[in-house]
């Protein structure tokens, strides 16, 4: 697995650039990852990222869009506005989590 340097930190990532160890993540790394995909994080972005991080801690897996909307109370429409085109992938990337596995 490749190691990359983000914001001065050495980070383990997979071939798509997703963090492989969620505990290496910090707010600063989140800001840097968002910048890499052209997103400047606002409070609304952070609300989604905080929910994803908290839910991952409790459930051991990344929440799907449906779950962010039903449990995290952020409408799917808003997630598409915050993280355009591929919100599930982009959100988990910024939050330092694996892609949700709804896709099998």
């Amino acid at each position, binding site marked *: 697995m490749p190691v990359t340097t983000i914001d001065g930190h050495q980070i383990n990532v*997979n*071939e*798509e650039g997703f963090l492989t160890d969620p505990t290496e993540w910090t707010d600063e790394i989140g800001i840097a990852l968002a910048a890499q995909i052209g997103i400047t994080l606002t409070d609304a972005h952070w609300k989604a990222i905080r929910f994803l991080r908290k839910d991952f801690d409790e459930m051991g897996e990344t929440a*799907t*869009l*449906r*779950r962010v909307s*039903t*449990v995290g109370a952020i409408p*799917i*429409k808003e*997630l*598409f506005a915050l993280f*355009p*085109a*591929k919100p599930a*992938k982009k959100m988990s990337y910024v939050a330092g989590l*694996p*892609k949700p*596995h*709804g*896709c*099998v």
Partner: protein
Amino acid sequence: MKRLLVLGAGTAGTMIVNKLRHHLDASEWDIKVVDRDDVHPYQPGFLFLPFGAYTAKQITRPRRGTLPKGVDFVIGEVDRVDAAANKVALVDGTTLDYDYLIIASGTTPRPDQTPGMLGEEWRRSIFDFYTFEGSKALAEALKKFDHGRLVVHITDMPIKCPVAPLEFTFLAEAWLREKGMRDRVEIIYVTPLPGAFTKPIASERLGSMLDDRKIAVESDFMVERIDVENKALVSYDEREVPFDLLVTVPLNMGADFVARSGLGDDLNYVPVDKHTLQSKAYPNMFAVGDASDIPASKAGSVAHFSIDIFVDNFMELIAGKPMTGSFDGHANCFIESGDGKGLLIDFNYDTEPLPGTYPLPFVGPMGLLKETRANHLGKLAFRWIYWNILLPGRSMPVPTLMSMVGKKPSNTMTKTTK
């Protein structure tokens, strides 16, 4: 007397009671299975109904006839499971007590979950093919369809038999060609996934097959609603896909009683250990087949392979021993591609579908990820195997755990990224 209660007499529940009745002493174990009706459908047959290939009789049987002697079959609707008290209440007021509970209530298409889907165009220009009624209605609609936009659509993952919408698309394309109407029909494949399928190598292969057939793919499409007046799918990011005939796979959800009983996740699937299928909340509860939340395809082959492991584990569990079997997520699916040909894919939690031959190296007789006549014949033969070997719990001459024998891994990637 110990009591084993199974909720659902579909593919998984039927295989389980057939196997366990052989293993469990009838003087010590009472086995009950509950379902809401007495009709067992051969669900893969629904795919062919729209093209007039099967009659209703060939693809349904009474559930009673598929169950072994010594198993009590109860027809009734489950109201809720009281897991703390080891009781199941039926809607008619009956209470069933258990020592071990197996939830095998599957997954169901839910057109009610997408605004506009169940409106006035439902079964007029909007169809599903995952139910007998839907598939029959679609057969009638196809007879009258001679030009326009045919849109095949998946609402969200996971869905039962994730290759079926692709198969439907390939079959429809071949059928239109045969009828001499292909030039007058535009076919669009609309998916919430980034490509044709979930796993990279298969997605590339299946994607190029769509391309060869001039089928357009609208990817990363999460439907918000159906605009009934203008006959169009509308996504959350405000893309619109107009249709003349829409064949949709509605949102799939587990049974409502799972939600009522507080046992499900946000799609009513029961959280279980992915290697043993044991409930994460109650050690005397299992969820098998499509009803669980394991990250594998919702498919009969997964149910079949996992139940082989489950039965041995269950015997260890009731003997007070640790469960030693570990399910690997093995799935094995035929993919009809039209013109009397088909593909076969074989994969598990960690290894994506790869090219090669199955089940033996070089000789096959099935080709993996490759269109062949043998794969199509395999799919057709499978109906007989389903009724006569699979459901009765007889053993199949293929390995339970996925094997790399006959597979050709690519140099770059053998592990799936989920």
